């Protein structure tokens, strides 16, 4: 957002588009800033999001998929929303080419609590498309300047099919590294799939990460969350040590427009990251 006015987006340019999945409805957009000052001001942490803004179409809040350790650009992985009536902004974005300019407002929201995570073992659990800010966090922690600040890192990531896994190159690279334990699973493999098959909750049960000095960071579709949380409770993770990211319809992204509240909290400013302990104090209904 512009310095003087949080409602005015800053201009960015698409420098790279990566088609992530074989269904062609999830793409990663890499943006570079048109103004150097904007780039300097765009300081963010993993877990934050921004409003991608296309004039004439509107704005859409999207989690930042790159890590602050990636300098010079910022990445967003965007799913084309809506099956019957496509989302205005996301489908317009998907129709853009490299070189196109759009607007950006952010960084917005809180982040994964880096301070809190420091010196702890981190269990990252992701499902499907909701892996984007987890990727940001993982890359942040894996960066050579940061790796030492964190304990063991375990990643459990699942998608419905091999073709629907995001960031396939990075997944492969993590598997080769020694300082991260990465378990990739798919609900149903294909001929070429050599990896694990099975649903994320079952895999979590299988892997059984220790709760000792550990924080679980979980993002995924509601159904995955629903069945994964009991696994972590059973493993004796406390509510404080299970973190997740919420989604609500947002407009302003800066806590003013009044629509993304869960109880007295605004998802856009008090969130999107909450621990289960935070959520416990909030109504379960909206």
């Amino acid at each position, binding site marked *: 957002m512009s310095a003087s006015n*949080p409602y005015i*987006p800053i201009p960015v340019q698409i420098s790279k588009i990566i088609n992530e999945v074989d269904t062609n409805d999830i793409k990663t957009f890499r943006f570079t800033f048109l103004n150097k000052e904007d780039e300097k001001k765009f300081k963010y942490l993993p877990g934050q999001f921004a409003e991608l803004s296309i004039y004439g179409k509107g704005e859409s809040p999207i989690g930042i998929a790159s890590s602050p350790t990636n300098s010079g650009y910022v990445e967003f992985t965007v799913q084309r929303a809506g099956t019957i009536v496509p989302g205005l902004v996301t489908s317009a974005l998907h129709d853009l080419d490299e070189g196109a300019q759009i607007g950006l407002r952010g960084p917005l929201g809180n982040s994964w609590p880096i301070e809190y995570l420091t010196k702890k073992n981190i269990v990252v659990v992701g499902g499907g498309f909701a892996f984007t800010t987890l990727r940001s966090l993982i890359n942040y922690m894996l960066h050579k300047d940061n790796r030492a600040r964190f304990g063991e890192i375990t990643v459990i990531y699942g998608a419905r099919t091999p073709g629907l896994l995001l960031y396939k190159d990075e997944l492969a690279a993590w598997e080769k590294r020694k300082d991260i334990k990465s378990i990739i699973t798919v609900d149903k493999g294909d001929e070429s799939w050599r990896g694990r098959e099975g649903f994320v909750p079952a895999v979590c049960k299988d892997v059984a990460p220790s709760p000792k000095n550990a924080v679980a960071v979980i993002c995924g579709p509601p159904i995955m969350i629903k069945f994964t949380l009991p696994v972590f409770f059973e493993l004796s993770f406390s509510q404080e040590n299970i973190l997740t990211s919420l989604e609500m319809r947002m407009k302003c992204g800066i806590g*003013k*427009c009044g629509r993304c509240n869960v109880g*007295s909290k605004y998802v856009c400013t008090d969130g999107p990251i909450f621990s289960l302990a935070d959520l416990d104090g909030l109504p379960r*209904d909206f």
Partner: protein
Amino acid sequence: MLKKTAINKISELAAVLMEKGTLIAPVKEVSGHNFAQILDPQKVDLDFYNTIMSPKSAFFPHKEDFINYKVGKPISEAEPVVLNLKPMFLFGVRPCDVKSFQIMDIHFNAAGIIDPYWRQRREATTIFGYAFDLSKSVDSADFYNTLGIYAADPDGSDIFMVKKDNELLLKGITLQGKKLLSELTTIENGKAADKKYFEEYIKKGRDYKTRFMCLDQETITKKLEDIFHNTDFWTRVSSACLSCGVCTFVCPTCYCFDICDDTQFGRGTRRRVWDACMFTDFTLEASGHNPRTQVYQRLRQKINHKYSYHVRKYGVISCVGCGRCTRYCPVSIDIYSIIEEAIKT
């Protein structure tokens, strides 16, 4: 400092203010009074109980243009709308409504990211509060006493005005108000009797009773948290609710808005427009999911927002008891009664 002017000479005062800047004052429309920018000083009309729409639109207009853009042109060519405000005079605001600005200030002008539009408008404005006419009976919908506000409460006004027979007494309350009043040289100074009348009027305002219940902020907040999942209660109190946006639009403390782009012939404007939590599409996500599909959920959101969430977030109830939501509700849903009933539940 106290000054006065004859009510029938208000237009002269209005003309002076219009010279100094933008005057926003009540005018009589077919259906009642409303605040409007004054272009003809004769139109200012203080013979009203309260306006239909609250004066919040002076700072938070129904539509606020952010930026003008052209389709197919580089984004950097989009032009942000600059306000270029002249000094603004918000004239004839009832004490309960004045109070609403203080509540809205927390949201727009103090907590978190500052809203530049609200701030600029607010800073440019001098508020002329205006005591209720104590000689007339109170509207049965009002309940600002419950929120600790009185009919002749000068708190929050820069200049406070009281009607004395055919005259209007104006007293500077804040520095800004006092300074402005001193600059209004065309109106005469008040006499000692006027001063006395003014002070007594303020005091008498405390005896001018609206509906009242003893409302402890923490108690009601807690109570609403407790009964949040009492669907029977919420279904019952919302059984008549139409889920229209009247209550939120007339409300002086409702601030929800939508941001939308309006394009025609390749040129467009991004702007914010009032929105209402009572509308079904308010929380409708692009995926088609909507966490609040039921009328009771939306009414619960509205009441909780005012009497619970806002207290938790900003430490103050977001309601001034002006009675508009009750008065203009097509089915006479009364937030006061709901709160009363909630406490009893």
